[in-house]
């Protein structure tokens, strides 16, 4: 999948995708907080997961992602985005 130039969460995304099946069994619909190749926690809301990330990891890149079977891309109908 093409990416914008500076995606800095390759490790976290790889971990999430490699563990998606087991996450689905345990936490479908909830939000995973991943740093590096470690699952930090599972949370009921996106904001809760981000709050925990800031409090425990600091202002560093981390991945918060909803546990779902597939990722549905967001749509943008305008031509403004240079991607």
């Amino acid at each position, binding site marked *: 999948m093409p990416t914008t130039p500076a995606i800095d969460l390759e490790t976290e995304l790889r971990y999430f995708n490699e563990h998606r099946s087991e996450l689905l069994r345990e936490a479908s619909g909830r939000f995973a907080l991943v740093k590096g190749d470690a699952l930090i926690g599972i949370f009921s809301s996106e904001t809760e997961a981000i709050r925990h990330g800031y409090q425990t990891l600091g*202002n560093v890149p981390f991945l918060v*992602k909803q546990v779902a079977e597939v990722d549905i891309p967001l749509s943008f109908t305008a031509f403004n985005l240079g991607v």
Partner: protein
Amino acid sequence: MPSFESSLPDLQTSGPILQVFIGPSRELIVAYGTEAVASPIPVSALVDTGAAATVITAETAALLGLRSVGAVSIHTPTTIDPVLCRQFHVNVHFSPVFAVENIVVIEAPLTGQFFQCLIGRDVLSRGVLTYDGARNRFSITF
């Protein structure tokens, strides 16, 4: 209810553009305090009902010292395959006393545009957008 109205000479040509301030999210401020995070910065923003989420540029994220909190794939009319974009957690300030807080926005280049932000349906889901083309004005009420 806070309401933000803008009148433009030619709304059809310019589109619904207003100035907002993008700043670190409430959650980041609570975690580190206002002294430790960047102050909100002004950007020109286009209200875009075709945008599933709010968009900021990499330059805005860098100026604010933001770190990514996620990544999401997007489709645009010019993409064949989905494109993966970083996400950041921000507040969108419409005035000194009102902000839409804790929004997960997308980073994308707004190449060749005279605005640095798209206000998407994530923000609009919290209010009412009125577009009065005949009078060249629009408003957002929260």
